[in-house]
């Protein structure tokens, strides 16, 4: 007989207990004493003012004070920390730069925050094999800077590249503007050294293009700090394209811009980047950085082609023709590197620009099939009106990765809650359109409820089993990324209770 996944999950096992987070009855003082004596010389912060900077990550609406913050600098120290935490069943929350947008590095009250910020060495750069071996706290940008003298670069380029760490990128499978052509983090990492929660050092992947056994590297990338602590990474470097040119195309309607995206890609041509901005985002960005965007456009497409000059010229000609055919009424092509960077600047400062339009903003993340772009944007506009909160759209159109920015004012009663509820509706819309609730920011604590919509009980139970295989005690970043089944059951009940079950067709439990 197969036990039902729900029953077998509720029977117990690491993940569930960890959620209860019972560290073996030990006073906070005793825990601190044991930690400090295990890692003499390693900072273990525990004063309230020292802990404050670690209360939240980039999802600032959620805050929690950890018991302590440890800032080790060697693998041996991390191992000692994990051994103590494992013995005490103390939750451990890994943290890179804290730029995550889903609360993945949100501390846990009574738990330990493990900052990997001092692991900042580039250990080796191998121009012949085109790889870099780095510590996990090295920033994304620093890898490309170190590779630049060899004409190489590390391709995934999240907008947070100057701050975010490769450890955090691996944990979130971060993407960037150019991942349409060069792939996500998972496509650009060859190997990671991880520590299991039980402090065992394992290598996943290899310096070669594949490794023996299961593809544990692929499983690990994007696991949000739940399966192990990254202590070293070997990443793939690519030759820097000699030329990049950017086309800015303006459209009189969001629909025609969205349709142009499908047509461009359907023509058999994949640009290096294909981004879209709607009118609210265009105006905010233009007022902020004066990039030269037409302020009256309903939508802009930013289409970049890169590579050898002959190839770029050919692609640009094709793209311009296609954009015009799709109804672009204004085209501007960068003619110099300065102009290209200026044209990008508007897109890249969309976040701070939005920050000037409202006291607070909430950045959403979800992916839909490209064909559904026009409908998705129409329905987001409708939801925005329904909730009375403006939504600006700036996103990775080429791979259907939406980033609606919900503008609100947290000082007004109820507005944060309304913004979150609107965000939840947008995630549900993505699932309904055949997409997913997160394309690159992760689930963290933010999207636990939406996971109940994306997956059925059977898949969620399987995720918990995978977690148990890596972390039988359930001490690593517990309670994040995968909701407990009873949370989903309660949520289902709640939805029914309100009479607004979003997708009656989707199985519930």
């Amino acid at each position, binding site marked *: 007989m197969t036990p039902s996944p729900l029953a077998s999950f509720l029977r117990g096992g690491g993940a569930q207990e960890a959620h209860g987070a019972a560290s073996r009855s030990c006073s906070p003082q005793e825990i601190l004493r044991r930690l400090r004596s295990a890692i003499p010389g390693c900072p273990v912060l525990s004063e309230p003012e020292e802990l404050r900077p670690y209360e939240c990550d980039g999802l600032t609406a959620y805050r929690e004070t950890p018991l302590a913050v440890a800032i080790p600098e060697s693998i041996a120290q991390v191992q000692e920390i994990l051994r103590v935490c494992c013995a005490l069943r103390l939750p451990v929350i890994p943290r890179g730069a804290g730029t995550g947008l889903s609360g993945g590095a949100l501390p846990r009250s009574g738990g330990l925050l493990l900052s990997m910020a001092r692991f900042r060495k580039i250990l080796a750069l191998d121009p*012949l094999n085109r790889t870099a071996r780095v510590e996990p706290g090295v920033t994304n940008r620093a890898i490309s800077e170190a590779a630049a003298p060899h004409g190489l670069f590390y391709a995934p380029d999240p907008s947070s590249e100057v701050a975010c760490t490769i450890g955090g990128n691996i944990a979130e499978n971060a993407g960037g503007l150019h991942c349409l052509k060069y792939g996500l983090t998972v496509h650009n990492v060859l190997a990671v050294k991880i520590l299991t929660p039980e402090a065992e050092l394992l290598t996943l992947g290899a310096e070669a293009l594949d490794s023996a056994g299961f593809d544990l590297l692929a499983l690990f990338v994007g696991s949000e700090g739940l399966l192990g602590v990254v202590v070293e990474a070997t990443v793939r470097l690519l030759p820097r394209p000699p030329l990049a040119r950017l086309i800015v195309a303006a459209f009189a309607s969001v629909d025609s811009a969205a349709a142009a995206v499908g047509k461009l890609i359907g023509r058999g041509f994949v640009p290096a980047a294909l981004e879209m901005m709607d009118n609210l985002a265009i105006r905010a960005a233009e007022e902020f950085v004066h990039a030269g965007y037409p302020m009256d456009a309903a939508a802009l497409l930013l289409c970049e082609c890169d590579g050898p000059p*002959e190839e770029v010229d050919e692609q640009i000609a094709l793209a311009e023709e296609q954009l015009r055919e799709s109804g672009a009424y204004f085209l501007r092509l960068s003619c110099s590197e300065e102009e290209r960077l200026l044209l990008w600047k508007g897109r890249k400062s969309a976040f701070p620009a939005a920050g000037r339009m409202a006291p607070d903003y909430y950045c959403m993340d979800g992916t839909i099939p490209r064909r559904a772009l026009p409908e998705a944007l129409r329905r987001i506009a409708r939801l925005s009106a329904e909730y009375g909160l403006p939504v600006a759209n700036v996103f990775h159109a080429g791979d259907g990765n939406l980033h609606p920015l919900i503008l609100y004012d947290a000082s007004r009663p109820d507005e944060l809650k309304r913004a979150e509820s609107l965000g939840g509706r947008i995630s549900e819309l993505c699932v309904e359109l055949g997409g997913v609730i997160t*394309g690159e920011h992760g689930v963290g604590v933010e999207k636990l409820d939406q996971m109940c919509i994306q997956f059925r009980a059977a898949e969620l139970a399987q995720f918990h089993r995978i977690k148990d295989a890596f972390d039988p005690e359930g001490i690593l970043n517990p309670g994040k990324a995968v909701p407990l089944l009873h949370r989903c059951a309660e949520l289902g009940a709640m939805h029914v209770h309100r009479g607004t079950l979003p997708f009656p067709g989707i199985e519930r439990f």
Partner: protein
Amino acid sequence: MSQSDRDLTEALADEVRQAHDSGIRLSLAGGETKPFLGRSVEGKRLSVREHCGIVHYEPTELVLTARAGTPLGEIHDLLAAHGQWLPFEPPSFASCATLGGTIACGLSGPARPFFGAARDFVLGVRLLDGRGQLLHFGAEVIKNVAGYDVARLVTGAQGTLGALLEISLKVGPLPPASETLTREEGLESSIRRLAELAAKPLPLSAASHDGERLFLRLSGTEAGVRAAANRIGGERLADPDAFWQSVRERTHPFFSLPGPLWRLSVPPATLAPPPGGGRLLLDWSGAQRWWKGSAEPTALWEWARSMGGHAALFDSGRCRLQPLDPGLFALHKRLKAAFDPKGILNSGRLYDSL
């Protein structure tokens, strides 16, 4: 849509569930073209071949979803009709190879170092786990970080974690132009040249050395390929497709040399030869090397590990993979148990007791 279009989900799920309940081991079969890739499996044969058909394909989305039994050839034909292809160039070894078997083996062809591996193109899967439960991971979109990436985990697991029923793949536009250059060149100097070329922004799409000659394939726009070919120089190969096919499908005369065949997966610029004399054929710009030679397996495994890679031995119709470190192997076993608690799916295919 495909001529043969059959959904056998229910029947297959029933079979796996019954096998689970009565503890009967299963041996999964697709087109049965690749038994040599793993170890032989004891068990009742469960064929997924009749579960076939293209479920969804929209060229503008660059995504294709098909049932596991769909013949790879049917997928190639459909994509080609729309100017698209599977950029990981999977080998098929015979016309009856199925999509499920191909993804289960995780095989990639000559374009792999430049365009990515099978796992890089897998976006989602439906599978039956060892309890007979139908599970769906991933989706038909390119960017997705909701939940652990099980779709990529099961790629290359050779059916030991689940029976694949349906697979969604990212597909790509067929490069408009392609050309292969060749020149006589020694192995070592070829490895050096390949490292140099791969660090330059050239539209390379395959690079191989057959023991005597270096072969470079360029793919991209007409003008891009022409400019690169002029820069690199060398003779134009008259029938490039036949050559790359022979490398991909292992029909190149090299593979008929007597003796066991080794696959060496190493960092591409590795210069050190494997221990013991033998002959090499380089693919993947040096990152995948076929070696005909005789040496103690343990010596080869030790060598491959010290180079930062791994090795597999194909001998007498069997395949032996590089042994895993104990800690890693223990984790493999725990994961296997998480997917297949009774160990009924292709047990022993990859490793003894897995």
